């Protein structure tokens, strides 16, 4: 019980910090509201799906950026548009902001800007992934202990 409460508190704090840091936004809460008994790990599933699917987009963009001085900005913009949609759907606030910045550089035909922004985007993307993984892990622990508690 004690441990449970502690973990639970930890979870709450962790989540709050994610929001405070601007990593997550309202949409994440929407997802959490969808979580129910039938889908207890819905949010985690969605985030996992997101990271899996967006990996493909990331590598496409990376590939396209390899063209160096002959960037196909339209293509980059299209790819990034897709990525923006996905990221916003899970509530990845900072990642989404970086995406928009990237798109702005695209329309300004700013190669440097695109490179820099994409680099930053990847960093945010990876950082969020790690933090969310930790969060979900704790959430599962809490869930398990709570279940244990209840069953006792």
């Amino acid at each position, binding site marked *: 019980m004690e441990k449970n409460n502690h973990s639970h508190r930890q979870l709450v704090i962790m989540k709050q910090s994610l929001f405070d840091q601007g990593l997550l936004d309202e*949409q994440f809460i*929407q*997802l959490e*509201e*969808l979580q*129910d008994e039938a*889908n207890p790990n*819905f949010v985690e*599933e*969605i985030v996992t*799906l*997101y990271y899996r*699917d*967006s990996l493909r987009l990331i590598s496409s963009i990376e590939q396209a950026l390899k063209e160096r001085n002959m960037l196909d900005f339209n293509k980059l913009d*299209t790819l990034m*548009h*897709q990525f*923006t*949609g*996905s990221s*916003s*759907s*899970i*509530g990845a606030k900072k990642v989404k902001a970086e995406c928009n910045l990237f798109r702005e550089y695209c329309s300004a035909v700013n190669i440097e800007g695109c490179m820099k922004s994409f680099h930053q985007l990847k960093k945010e993307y990876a950082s969020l992934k790690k933090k969310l993984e930790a969060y979900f892990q704790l959430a599962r622990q809490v869930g398990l202990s709570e279940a244990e508690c209840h069953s006792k």
Partner: protein
Amino acid sequence: MNLTNGKGSISTVTTTTVSMKSGEGSDQFPAGLRVLVVDDDPTCLKILEKMLRSCYYEVTQCNRAEAALSLLRENKNGFDIVISDVHMPDMDGFKLLEHIGLEMDLPVIMMSADDGKNVVMKGVTHGACDYLIKPVRMEALKNIWQHVVRKKKNDWKDSEQSGSADEGDRHPKASDDADYSSSANESNWRSSRKRRDDEEDGDDRDDSSTLKKPRVVWSVELHQQFVAAVDQLGIDKAVPKKILELMNVPGLTRENVASHLQKYRLYLRRLSGVSQHQNNSFLSPQEASFGTISSMNGLDLQTLAAAGQLPAQSLATLQAAGLGRSAVKSGLAMPLMDQRNLFSFENPRLRFGEGQQQLLSNNKTNLLHGVPTNMEPKQLANLHQSAAQSLGNLNMRVPGSSTQGNPLLMQMPQQSQPRGQMLSENISPRIPRLPNLLGQSTVSNGISDGLLGRNGIASSSRGPSFNSVQQSSMFFNSPMNQSTEMSVTNFPLGSTPGISSITTKGTFQPEVNSGIKGSAGFPSYDIFNELNHQKPRDWGMTNPGLTYDSSQHANPLHGNIDVSPSVLVHQGYSSTPQNGHNRDNSLIGKSPFSLGESSEQGHFQNGVQNFNPLVENSTRVIKSEIVPDASSQTSLFPDHYGQEDLMSVLLKQQEGIVQGENEFDFDGYSLDNIPV
């Protein structure tokens, strides 16, 4: 049910409320609302599905637009509302939206991360009932049922209104029959309409709660019938009641027809708006009216003829372009028709000239007939190529709007023949494209076979596939098949007295309609048809191809287009003065008019002239692709010309004319250039 598709197009079918067949049980509504979600992003798709299921809706997911369309087509009454993403890899969301609106008449909600005003506006103009910005929130989805209710309510009202409105417009005095007796269109249909609305509202209120009105599924066949009926009547005169009578489909009510007609008109208007732009660019001011239409039609027909398969979209585009609300558009159709008529019958040139114009205006809508039908992207692609040639001009503009979704359109511009025949400035002669199209499209095969015959193609094309395909095939085939009849039918040139009669008759080979629709002004067709024989066709699509068909039919495509160059040449000359007029737009369009006007050559000239542009386009297409088809193309000319003659001329034209054709001045260029 688990619709797992190898392609993964359809992920799953969730059946939250399996029992809800009709979609809304009055007691549980909106629970059980059957929603189809289309989005290529799996994350969003999953989130949406979960959200919708928490609203107790029955959700089906789809990650590809094409799969969604086939799913919708297979289950005509299986869904109540569709939610689709705007940016999808295989098809533009707006294109999907159009298809759904026309074929299934379901409310469609667009969504995108893009909240730019232009995109949202596009959604509005394409008929989306709502536009959601991603990320989509639960609250936004909770109320989507309102769109279903609203649409049903409006359908009821619209059907009544459009019915009375149509009648009112058309017969301001005549009182319609019983149905609209109250509308008393004679004096004040508006007031009567109001009255009717009131009555409707009352009825609606009774029904809306249950929303039990069975939805009519507008299948491809049904839509084609509808289009044919509208063509026959003339878009301006197409009253739901009459359309219903012509269609003669048991179980179909006037309301169904009326609401569908309304949508169809919107669709045409939209297309014409685009095409118009295109056309105008090419046409010289004077000719603008004629040229535009003529060119469009001519092009369309040619393309169709050439391609044999006008993709429905192309046709639509053509039609739109031709029909475009502008009379000019119809001009296109006319030229083709006129040609035919000229040749085949002694149609007074004047008739053409005037008739065409009239027809043009009237036929605006015709062009698009049948276009909306289910054109699968692939088929469209095929059609595009063929249609692209002629349609290229027309479609040049259109594609702009929905490039993605409209393969035809896109292709057309590319394919537009350099000749200048292509109306659109973008016409970049690419004959080679045609071969692709022809090769690809099965329909075109028909043509290449020499006449697949319109029958052959028609039947095949008629299929659920695209109307355009059919039409294109028709287009090509018709000439061939028809040696006797110019089934021009599709051009609803009802309005023009002289021509209209002929045009409407053209039931041109229904198949062709789809493709040919581009040429709105098929007045010529009508004439031809009459002369030859009208094949009542439910083309619905005023396919420029029609005119071609006639001629084509005359010449079995089996590669024997022996159209005597002389004949063609001759025509080309006389029409010159006029042709020049048409030049840009569509060789086709012009000819009819010019022919009419330059009586010297008699219809022949006109027909030829018109034909030339078309022929050229088509020949171009044909030439590059299929010689045999070329013959069919030549058959565009009136049957009486002798398909062989026409064909040969066409073929020759293809070879030599390309350059000159842009002028369409028919200074015999096309014909002249044809090495006889």
